[in-house]
C-alpha cells in the first residue's frame, strides 16, 4: 500500500512538472503554429543557469530560480528574433521553421556541452533533505516546492490569458494570425513576447526537472517530448486539456514503471505519444 501511495505522490509531482512544460509549449505553439524542436533545450538552459548561479556564483535558491527562468526567456526570445521572426517575414512554409528549430536545438545543446561538459550534474546540494510523510508516501521539501510553483504559475497564466488585454491578444493570435493582423495587433512583437514568456516557463520547468533528475546537455529532447505529449493528448491549444493530460502522463509513466523496469520509462513515454498520434491526434478533449 505504501508503494501505491508513493507512486501516486510521484505521479502528482511528475504531473506538476509536465504541466509547467506543457503550458509553455502550448503557449508558443499557439502563437507560432509549428513544433519548435528547440523548446526542450531552451528549458534545459534554465536548469543550467540555475546550476551556474547556485554553484559558481553562490546565489541563493529563489533568486537563482527566477534568474534561471529569465535566462531561458532570453534564450528563447533570441531564437525568435534571430531565426523565426526573419523566417516569418519570408513567409516560408512551417517545415522550414521546424528544420531551423532543429538547428537551434543542435546548436544550443552543443553550447551547453561546451560550457558545462557532457556529464550529468545534480542541481541540489546533497545533504539532509527534509522529507514529509503523506499517507505513507515520502515527499521531499523540494517536491512540495515543485507542486507549489506549478500551481502558482498555472494559476497566474490562467489569470493573464483570461483577464488581461495581452492575454486576449495572445488567444486571438492562437486562433488565427490573420485575424490578429487585421485587428492591428503587432503580431511580430506579440509573438516575441509570447516566446519570452513561454521560454521563461520552459526554463522554470527545466529547473524543476533538474531538481528531480539532475541536468545533462541531452535532456532537451526528453523535455520536448514531456512537453509535446501532454499538449497533443490534451489537444493543441487547449490549456486545460494539456494540464489534465500532463497529470495523466505522469501517472501512466510512474505506474508503468511499476510493471516494467524503469529503464523503459522513456520508451513508455514515446510509445504513448505514438499511440495518441495515431489514434487520436485531436486530443482527449477533441479540439484541433
Amino acid at each position, binding site marked *: 500500500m505504501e508503494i501505491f501511495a508513493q507512486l501516486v505522490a510521484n505521479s502528482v509531482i511528475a504531473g506538476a512538472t509536465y504541466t509547467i512544460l506543457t503550458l509553455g509549449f502550448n503557449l508558443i505553439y499557439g502563437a507560432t503554429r*509549428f*513544433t519548435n524542436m528547440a523548446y526542450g533545450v531552451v528549458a534545459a538552459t534554465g536548469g543550467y543557469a540555475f546550476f551556474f548561479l547556485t554553484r559558481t556564483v553562490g546565489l541563493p535558491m529563489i533568486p537563482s530560480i527566477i534568474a534561471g527562468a529569465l535566462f531561458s526567456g532570453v534564450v528563447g526570445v533570441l531564437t525568435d528574433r534571430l*531565426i523565426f521572426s*526573419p*523566417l516569418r517575414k519570408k513567409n*516560408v*512554409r*512551417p*517545415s*522550414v*521553421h*521546424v*528544420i*531551423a528549430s*532543429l*538547428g*537551434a*536545438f*543542435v*546548436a*544550443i*545543446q*552543443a*553550447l551547453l*556541452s*561546451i560550457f558545462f*561538459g*557532457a556529464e550529468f550534474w545534480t542541481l541540489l546540494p546533497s545533504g539532509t533533505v527534509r522529507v514529509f510523510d503523506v499517507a505513507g508516501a515520502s515527499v521531499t521539501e523540494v517536491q512540495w516546492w515543485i507542486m507549489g510553483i506549478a500551481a502558482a504559475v498555472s494559476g497566474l497564466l490562467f489569470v493573464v490569458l483570461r483577464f488581461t488585454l495581452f492575454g486576449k491578444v495572445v488567444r486571438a493570435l492562437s486562433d488565427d494570425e490573420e485575424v490578429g493582423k487585421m485587428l492591428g495587433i503587432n503580431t511580430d512583437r506579440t509573438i516575441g513576447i509570447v516566446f519570452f514568456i513561454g521560454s521563461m516557463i520552459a526554463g522554470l520547468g527545466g529547473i524543476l526537472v533538474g531538481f528531480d533528475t539532475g541536468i545533462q546537455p541531452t535532456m532537451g*529532447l526528453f523535455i520536448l*517530448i514531456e512537453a*509535446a505529449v501532454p499538449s*497533443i493528448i490534451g489537444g493543441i491549444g487547449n490549456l486545460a486539456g494539456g494540464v489534465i493530460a500532463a497529470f495523466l502522463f505522469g501517472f501512466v509513466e510512474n505506474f508503468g514503471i511499476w510493471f516494467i*523496469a524503469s*529503464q*523503459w520509462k*522513456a*520508451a513508455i513515454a*514515446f*510509445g504513448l*505519444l*505514438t499511440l495518441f*498520434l*495515431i489514434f487520436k*491526434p485531436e486530443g482527449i478533449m477533441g479540439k484541433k
Partner: protein
Amino acid sequence: MNYILHLGTFFGIYAILGISLNLLVGGTGLIWIAHAAIFGLGAYVLALLMTKVALNFFLAAFLGMCIAGIVGCIAAWVFARLSGDYYMLASVAFNYIIVSVFINWESLTNGPLGISGISRPSLFGISFAGNESFFALTFLFLGLVYVSARLIMHSSFGRVIKAIREDEEAIRVFGYHTLLYKIMISGIAAAMAALAGALFASYIAFIDPSNFHVMESIFILGIVVVGGFASIRGSLLGALILVLLPEVLRFAGFPQDISAHMQQLVYGIVLILFMLYRPQGLIGEYKF
C-alpha cells in the same frame, strides 16, 4: 593515403544515407527524423548475424536490408495518417524507441556495451579486409544506390511520389493508391539505410547504441538540407561537405574534449543558415 580512404569510405556510407533519406523526404515532403534508427537496425542485424552465427557479410547485409525494409513499410503504414508536425514527432518517438531496444534488450544486443569484433566482408575467398578494397566495395554499393535512386525518380513511380509531395489528395482523385506508394518508398529508403548500416558496422568493427540517436538522424537530415531536397546529386554533395567539415574543423585546433561539440555547434548553425538563406539547398531546385 589511409586517411583519404577512411574519409572516402565514410563519405560513401553517409552518401547512401543521404540519398535514401532524400528519396523519402524529398518524395513525400514530410520531415522524418528516424533514419539513424534504421541505419542502426541494419548495423545491428549485420553485427549479430556475423558475430553470433558467422554469416557471410553479403548475406547478413541482405537480410538486414529485408528486415529494415519491412520495418520501414510498417512504420509508413502506421504513421501514414499523420500530418507534418505529428509525423515528425512520431518519427522522433520511433527513433527513441528503437534505440531503447538496442540499449535495453541486453541479452540480444549486449546493451550499452555494444557489439565488437565485427569482421570485414569476404566472398568466395576474396577478402575485403583491406582499407582499399573496402573503400572500393563501399563505392560499388554507393554506385548501385545512386543509379537505383535515379532510376526510381525517373520512372512513373518517381513522378507519382513527387505528385504526392505536391498534393496527395489531388493525385488520389486520379486513381492512385497513395498509401501504397508511401509504403513502398519508405521500404526502399529503409533498405538502403540498412545497407549503409551494414557497411558501417563492418568497417569500424564495433557498434553501440550511441551511434544511432536522434542527433544522428538530424545529421543525416542535414545532408539532405545542405545538398538540396529532391536532388539525388545534392545528397552526394551534402554528404561530401558534412563528412569533410569535421576534418576542416580539426585544423582549427579545438581542444580534444570539445571538438565533437564544436562540430555539433557548426552543424546546428549550418542548418539554421541554410533555412534562412538557402532552404532549397546548394543544388536543389525545390522552391520553399
